């Protein structure tokens, strides 16, 4: 059989494919159904974020940050405003940082819910997807009552927040946490530990830790390979050092360490950890005026700053150069999805087309983040 050489076929997966999570185009070279090579092509969703940022004032860039990784808007804004504040060298009230952390963690849960739900959809389970979206809606309700928007928030401003928490927010947030813990359990029952799901994802797309590090992977993709690396812990920014929580890493419970199931499961358990952070932050929420430190005019001194943060997808960083005017000279976004996507050819060779879907879903990219 070995000398039987079959012809290879080039298959374009995407950009209009139901499960490439947006508009990713992967050029697959397949031998029958076996993937010989996979080349991701990016740029279909390029929206010139960095060029836009050159002609906008610092405050006006925040809505554009929202649109980078549209599933993790709060986290994008968080990193950006931290950078601008560092440039301005201002200290924000503690309450602001607490609220930012609460929002960022809620956003992380919401983002992971989309990721986990659509992953189930990729594998063929439709119902968990809608359960996840049901819970995500509750988070979006919280966001809407806080800042008025459901997807692109423009909530964190350089120096503060657009609004303080509305009355009733804390109670609603606690109610959500109470509802959500059993929901995670149910999700595990329905999907995570389902034998078919496990068989589809375990031992598929195995990503060894060293390759993950070499490719600059971060976030759940890196932690799925067992690397304990989370910027919230390893290089605490904002007020993350005040909370007690654990970094979740993949264990290879169902198969090999660093397979799709591990990457998936890291996200599920991370939601649990985010709940812990939110609970603590809600308990110790300090008083203060969230508008107190907002500067009238953002005009940072000449200089540059590099801030990094842990977005739901990994290490999100901004490099901001100021020339002393009201507009930044340059804003560079370091998108986690971009690095994670570059892994794709490495971990998909030799698997089937069906596995390809599982792998793309497990590295969890947002095309808005890849292309910016």
């Amino acid at each position, binding site marked *: 059989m070995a000398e039987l050489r079959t012809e290879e076929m080039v298959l374009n997966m995407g950009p209009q494919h139901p499960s490439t999570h947006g508009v990713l185009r992967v050029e697959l070279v397949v031998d029958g159904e076996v993937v010989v090579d996979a080349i991701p092509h990016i740029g279909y969703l390029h929206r010139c974020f960095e060029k836009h940022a050159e002609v906008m004032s610092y405050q006006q860039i925040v809505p554009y940050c929202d649109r980078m990784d549209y599933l993790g808007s709060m986290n994008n804004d968080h990193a950006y405003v931290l950078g601008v504040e560092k440039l301005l060298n201002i200290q924000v009230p503690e309450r602001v940082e607490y609220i930012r952390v609460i929002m960022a963690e809620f956003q992380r849960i919401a983002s992971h819910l989309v990721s986990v739900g659509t992953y189930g959809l990729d594998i*063929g389970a439709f119902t968990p997807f809608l359960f996840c979206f049901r819970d995500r809606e509750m988070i979006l309700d919280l966001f809407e009552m806080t800042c008025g928007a459901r997807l692109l928030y423009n909530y964190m401003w350089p120096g503060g927040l657009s609004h303080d928490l509305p009355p009733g927010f804390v109670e609603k947030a606690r109610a959500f946490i109470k509802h959500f813990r059993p929901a995670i359990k149910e999700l595990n029952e329905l999907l995570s530990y389902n034998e078919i799901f496990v*068989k589809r994802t375990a031992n598929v797309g195995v990503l060894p830790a060293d390759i993950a590090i070499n490719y600059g992977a971060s976030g759940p993709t890196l932690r799925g390979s067992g690397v304990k690396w989370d910027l919230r812990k390893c290089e605490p920014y904002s007020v993350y050092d005040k909370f007690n929580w654990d970094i979740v890493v993949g264990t290879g419970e169902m198969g090999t360490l660093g397979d799709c199931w591990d990457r998936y499961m890291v996200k599920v358990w991370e939601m649990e950890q985010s709940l812990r952070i939110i609970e603590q932050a809600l308990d110790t929420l300090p008083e203060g005026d969230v508008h107190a430190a907002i500067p009238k005019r953002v005009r940072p001194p000449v200089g540059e700053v590099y801030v990094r943060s842990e977005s739901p997808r990994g290490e999100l960083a901004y490099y901001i150069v100021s020339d002393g005017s009201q507009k930044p000279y340059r804003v560079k976004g370091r998108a986690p999805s971009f690095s994670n996507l570059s892994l794709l050819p490495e971990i998909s060779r030799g698997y089937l087309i069906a596995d390809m879907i599982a792998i793309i879903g497990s590295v969890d990219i947002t095309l808005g983040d890849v292309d910016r």
Partner: protein
Amino acid sequence: MHNFITYYLGAGFWGSLVSSIIPLVFILPFALVAIWLELKISAHMQDRVGPMRTGRWHGWAQPLADVTKLIQKEDIIPAAADKALYILAPALVFVGAYAAYAAIPFSPAYIGSDINLGIFYIVAVSALVVIGILMAGWSSNNKWSLLGAMRTAAQLVSYEIPSSLAILAVVMVAGSLNLNDICAAQSGWFWNWFVFGKFPFLFITFIIYFIASLAETNRSPFDIPEAESELVAGYHTEYSGMRFAFFYLAEYANMFVVAAVAAVLFFGGWNSPFGTFLSGPVWGVFWLISKGMVLVFIQIWLRWTLPRFRVDQLMYLSWKILTPFALVNIFAVGLWVVLRG
């Protein structure tokens, strides 16, 4: 009096025509009802409500509206398609599903064609579907369609083995391939049904048959030929309008065929579960259809619960789990029949 129509109209042209049209009269409303059920059940399982507007009462007219839309749609044939095969394929797929209805005993007084090889005939004509799907996949001239069609061919051919072996076990117990005779062999109270007979062997046989039948109808978790998240839509990627509706119709028609066959083989077919209570030709129709519907419900239930298998896992399940179990079962049932009758 196995077919009251030929009894009254004779076995000539008119009798045959009418008795061959009756399944169609059943399939179309059934497909509409099943689509509606699928919409509603899936919706409620997902904390939604599903269609609520079309037809006012719980969106009962939604499938009708869908069909109307599909009929009105422009008929597109891809430029690079193999036209003849492309047009023929949906018809062939539907014929495979439709022809199987000829041998299903809806009631003691009605069976399309009371042939002695009834169950064998159903297994044989169901295999037509494979050819239709292969034709659809090939003629579309689309790589995704072709992959879907190849998967289907592999899947359907492999799952015919365990399902035939499962049927064989029942046939051994009943001693006949005629579906009416198999029904008659289970008359009386429900504990006479074959699913409880030769316990637990025929029960395991039922499970094997049910799993294999899911695969044969391309239902989840075996919907890899369509696999919308992998292969876009598999073999019917390029189809639209009425031709797509035919594939759809065939799928639902097939769902009922396998459910009805399972009902006949394992659940007494047109027999009432309560002895002679509520039995007879008219109630027979009711019992067969409701048994079939319960099984259709389970198919729907599974579809909205489970993820999808991968091609190789599907083959693994068929060849390494279902087939050996079915063989062992046949051996055990055969031994039982020989030794204890």
